[in-house]
C-alpha cells in the first residue's frame, strides 16, 4: 500500500494560493466545512509518485499566526494541534513575488513551529516585467528550507514543487529566528513551568486574541514560578516580535532580492484614479451592479425555463409509468417538484457567483470595500458588509457566510442580522406572480413598465430596510468591540478562468445541498399533510364531489381537479389554514393564502407550488395559476380576492418576513447560538405582519 502524507497550503490572501491548490489537485478536490464551524475546508488527495500520495489541505488565507478572524483561527488551530488527523507533515507557504517581504512574516512564524516548511514563490513569471531578481540559492540558505519559484497562471514550476513535497523529510526544521529572544527572562520561566511543551507554541496559545464570539482557550496560568503578563505587556511583546521578524526579513532580502524600482510601476495608479474616484467610482459600481442584475435575470430565464419543463415532464413520466398509488404520488407530487424547486435557482445563483468571483479575482472588490466603508459605517456595518449584502440578492445562505471576514464581531453580527432583508432569488417567483396579478402591464410616460418599476422598488425596499435595520441594530446592541479595519488593496489582475469556474461550482453545490435538503424535506412533509385528512370527508371526497356536481356537464379532468381541491380543503393542511384564517383576514387574505404562507415559512419559493396545489391547478404554469387566482373572491369583503390592496400587502409581507429555515440554520451556525436566528424570525416576521396589515387597511 502506498504511503500518504498531509500537506497544508498556507499563505496570505491575494497570493494566488487558491490557484496553486487548483493546479496541484485539479478536479478531484472536495469542499466541506471544518467540524463544528462553517469555515470552508478544501482538500484533495493526489498521487505524487508510485508509492506516495499527498492529502492536500487548502487553509484559509492569513497574514500571520495571530488570529483576528474565524478563518485565521482555523489555521492556527490546525498547526498547533499535533493530534489533528490533518496535522501536516509538511507546510507549503505560498507567497507572491512582489510582496515577498510581507509574506515572509507568516513563513518565519510557521518555521518556528518546527515543521518542515517549503516556500513556494508564486507569480514568478512577473519577475522580469517588474524588474525583480532573486538569489534563490542564498534565500534557501538564509531561510533554511527549499524555495520553489512557480507560476500558477502559466502552470510552471509544479513538477519541482511536487518533488520538494516528496523530499520534505530532508528539510531542516530549525527556526529562522527564535521568538524567545524578545524577552529572555519571561520565556525562560515559561519553559521551566511547561518543560515538555514547544516554547513558540506556548507563546502562540498565550497571545491569541480572538475578537470573534466565544473562543474557549485554556489560558496558561501561573504555576511553578511562571508569572503571566498583563494584556498590554503581551501586546507590546507581540509588537516586538513582529519588529524582530521584519528585521530578519529585511536583512535576508537585502542580500537576496533586487528590485528595479523604475520598472515596478504598474497599472494600479491609473485604474485606481477612475475606479475609486469620488464620483465616477460610485457611478461605475452602480453600473456594474445594474449590469449584473440585468444579465442574471435575462440570461437565467432560458436555463430556468428548461429546468422547469424538464421537471414537469419527469413528473408526468412517473405518473404514466409507475402504477398508481402512494409511492408514485409521493415521487411525482412530492419529491420531483421539491427537487425542481431547488434546481430552478441554480442558474441565477451560478451567474451571481460568476460575477462576484470575477470581481474578487480582479481586485475590484477591495476598491468597493474602500468606497463604501464610510457609508456603511453610518449604518453599523463595515465596507466589507457590501459583499454579503450584494450576495444576498442571490441567496442569504452564502451571504451570511461571506460576512466571515469582517473583523469586528459587532459589525459582523449586524451584517448577518440584516442580510435576509435583501431580496433573494427565492422571493422572485412570489413577486412575479403577484405583480402579474395586481399591477397593470402598462407603461408610465410611455417608457417605464409599471410591473418592472414595482419589481425594482421591491429590490430597493429590501436594500433600504437592510441598511436601516443595521442602523437600528447597531444602536440597540451593546457590544464592546475593537474596530479593526485593515484591508489590503491588491494589484489588478486578469481573472483566472479555472479559479472562477471552481468557485462557481463550489458555491452552487453548497446552495443545492445546504438549502436543498430542507426544501426537499418540507416538500415531502407538505405532501403528506396535504394527502391525508383527519375526517371521513377527506377519504370520501370522490363520492361527495361527484354527488354534488352535475357530472355530465364536466370533463373528467375538471372533475378530478374539483376532487383534489375538495381533498385539500379537508386535509390536515386545510384545517391548519382555516385555523389561522382570523389572523390573515385583516391582511386581506383568505385561508388558502394562509396555507401557502404557513408552508412557505420554510422557504418562500414553496408559495407558488402550494397555491398551485390549493387552487387545484393541474400544473404550476404561471398563466394558469394567475387566471385561477384572479377568479377568487374575498370571503369577508366580497369582490375579487386579489386586489391592489391585498396584492401589495402580500408583496410587503414577503419582502420582510423571515421565511427561510436554511438561513436560520446558517445564522445559528455562524453565531453559535439560537438567540440571533430567533430574533430574526420573530423580529422580521412580526414587522412583516404589521407592515402588511397597515398597507391593506390603508389601501382597501
Amino acid at each position, binding site marked *: 500500500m502506498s504511503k500518504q502524507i498531509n500537506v497544508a497550503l498556507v499563505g496570505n490572501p491575494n497570493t494566488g494560493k487558491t490557484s496553486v491548490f487548483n493546479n496541484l489537485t485539479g478536479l478531484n478536490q472536495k469542499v466541506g466545512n471544518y467540524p463544528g464551524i462553517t469555515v470552508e475546508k478544501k482538500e484533495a488527495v493526489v498521487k505524487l509518485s508510485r508509492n506516495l500520495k499527498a492529502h492536500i489541505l487548502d487553509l484559509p488565507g492569513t497574514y500571520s499566526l495571530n488570529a483576528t478572524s474565524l478563518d485565521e483561527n482555523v489555521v492556527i488551530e490546525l498547526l498547533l494541534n499535533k493530534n489533528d488527523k490533518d496535522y501536516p507533515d509538511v507546510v507549503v507557504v505560498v507567497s507572491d513575488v512582489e*510582496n515577498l*517581504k*510581507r509574506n515572509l512574516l507568516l513563513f518565519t512564524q510557521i518555521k518556528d513551529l518546527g515543521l518542515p516548511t517549503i516556500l513556494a514563490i508564486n507569480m514568478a513569471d512577473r519577475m522580469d516585467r517588474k524588474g525583480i531578481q532573486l538569489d534563490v540559492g542564498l534565500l534557501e540558505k538564509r531561510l533554511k528550507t527549499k524555495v520553489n519559484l512557480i507560476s500558477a497562471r502559466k502552470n510552471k514550476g509544479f513538477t519541482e514543487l511536487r518533488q520538494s513535497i516528496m523530499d520534505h523529510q530532508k528539510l531542516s526544521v530549525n527556526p529562522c529566528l527564535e521568538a524567545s529572544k524578545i524577552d529572555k527572562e519571561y520565556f525562560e520561566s515559561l519553559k521551566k513551568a511547561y518543560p515538555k511543551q514547544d516554547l513558540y507554541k506556548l507563546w502562540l496559545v498565550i497571545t491569541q486574541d480572538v475578537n470573534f464570539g466565544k473562543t474557549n482557550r485554556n489560558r496558561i496560568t501561573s504555576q511553578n514560578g511562571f508569572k503571566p503578563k498583563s494584556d*498590554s505587556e503581551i501586546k507590546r511583546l507581540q509588537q516586538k516580535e*513582529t519588529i524582530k521578524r521584519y528585521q530578519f526579513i529585511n536583512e535576508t532580502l537585502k542580500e537576496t532580492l533586487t528590485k528595479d524600482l523604475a520598472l515596478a510601476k504598474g497599472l494600479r495608479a491609473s485604474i*485606481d484614479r477612475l475606479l*475609486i474616484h469620488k464620483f465616477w467610482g460610485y457611478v461605475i459600481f452602480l453600473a456594474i451592479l445594474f449590469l449584473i442584475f440585468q444579465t442574471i435575470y435575462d440570461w437565467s430565464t432560458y436555463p430556468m425555463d428548461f429546468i422547469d419543463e424538464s421537471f414537469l415532464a419527469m413528473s408526468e413520466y412517473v405518473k404514466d409509468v409507475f402504477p398508481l398509488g402512494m409511492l408514485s404520488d409521493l415521487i411525482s407530487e412530492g419529491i420531483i417538484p421539491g427537487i425542481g424547486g431547488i434546481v430552478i435557482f441554480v442558474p441565477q445563483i451560478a451567474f451571481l457567483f460568476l460575477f462576484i468571483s470575477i470581481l474578487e479575482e480582479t481586485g475590484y472588490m477591495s476598491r468597493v470595500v*474602500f468606497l463604501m466603508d464610510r457609508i456603511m459605517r453610518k449604518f453599523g456595518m463595515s465596507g466589507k458588509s457590501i459583499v454579503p449584502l450584494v450576495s444576498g440578492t442571490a441567496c442569504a445562505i452564502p451571504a451570511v457566510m461571506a460576512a466571515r471576514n469582517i473583523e469586528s464581531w459587532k459589525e459582523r453580527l449586524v451584517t448577518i442580522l440584516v442580510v435576509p432583508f435583501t431580496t433573494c432569488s427565492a422571493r422572485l417567483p412570489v413577486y412575479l406572480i403577484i405583480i402579474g396579478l395586481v399591477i397593470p402591464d402598462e407603461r408610465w410616460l410611455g417608457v417605464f413598465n409599471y410591473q418592472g418599476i414595482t419589481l425594482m422598488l421591491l429590490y430597493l425596499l429590501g436594500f433600504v430596510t437592510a441598511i436601516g435595520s443595521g442602523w437600528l441594530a447597531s444602536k440597540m446592541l451593546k457590544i464592546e468591540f475593537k474596530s479593526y479595519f*485593515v484591508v489590503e488593496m491588491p494589484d489588478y489582475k486578469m481573472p483566472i478562468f479555472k479559479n472562477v469556474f471552481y468557485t462557481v461550482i463550489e458555491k452552487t453545490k453548497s446552495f443545492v445541498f445546504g438549502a436543498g435538503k430542507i426544501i426537499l424535506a418540507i416538500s415531502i412533509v407538505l405532501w403528506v399533510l396535504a394527502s391525508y385528512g383527519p375526517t371521513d370527508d377527506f377519504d370520501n371526497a370522490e363520492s361527495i364531489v361527484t354527488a354534488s356536481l352535475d357530472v355530465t356537464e364536466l370533463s373528467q379532468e375538471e372533475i378530478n381537479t374539483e376532487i383534489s381541491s375538495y381533498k385539500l380543503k379537508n386535509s390536515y393542511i386545510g384545517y391548519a389554514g382555516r385555523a389561522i384564517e382570523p389572523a390573515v383576514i385583516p391582511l386581506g387574505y383568505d385561508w388558502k393564502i394562509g396555507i401557502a404562507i404557513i408552508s412557505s415559512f420554510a422557504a418562500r419559493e414553496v408559495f407558488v407550488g402550494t397555491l398551485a396545489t390549493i387552487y387545484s391547478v393541474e400544473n404550476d404554469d404561471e398563466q394558469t395559476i394567475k387566471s385561477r387566482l384572479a377568479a377568487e373572491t374575498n370571503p369577508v369583503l366580497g369582490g375579487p380576492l386579489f386586489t391592489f390592496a391585498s396584492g401589495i400587502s402580500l408583496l410587503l409581507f414577503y419582502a420582510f418576513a423571515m421565511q427561510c429555515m436554511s438561513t436560520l440554520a446558517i445564522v445559528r451556525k455562524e453565531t453559535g447560538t439560537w438567540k440571533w436566528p430567533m430574533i430574526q424570525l420573530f423580529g422580521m416576521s412580526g414587522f412583516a405582519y404589521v407592515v402588511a396589515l397597515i398597507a391593506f387597511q390603508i389601501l382597501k
Partner: protein
Amino acid sequence: MLTIASLKKGQRAIIGEMTSQDIPLKLLEMGCLPGNHVELIQIAPFKDPLYLNINDTFLSIRRETAKLIHIELIPDE
C-alpha cells in the same frame, strides 16, 4: 504631533515610534513599523478611509487608526 491622518495626497513620510495600544497588530504585520515609509495615495469620498502605500504594501485603514500612527515628514526630495 504629525500622524498619518495629517498627510496630504501624494505625500510621503517615515513612520515613527508606535506607542498606542490601540494600533491593531495586523497593521504592524502588514509592514507598518517604525522606520518604514508611508505614502498617502488616495482618500476615500467623505474623507475616510485612507489608501496607503506602506513599505510597498497597499492597504486601506480608517482615519481613527491613522491618527494613532506618528510620522516624520520626509523633506522635499
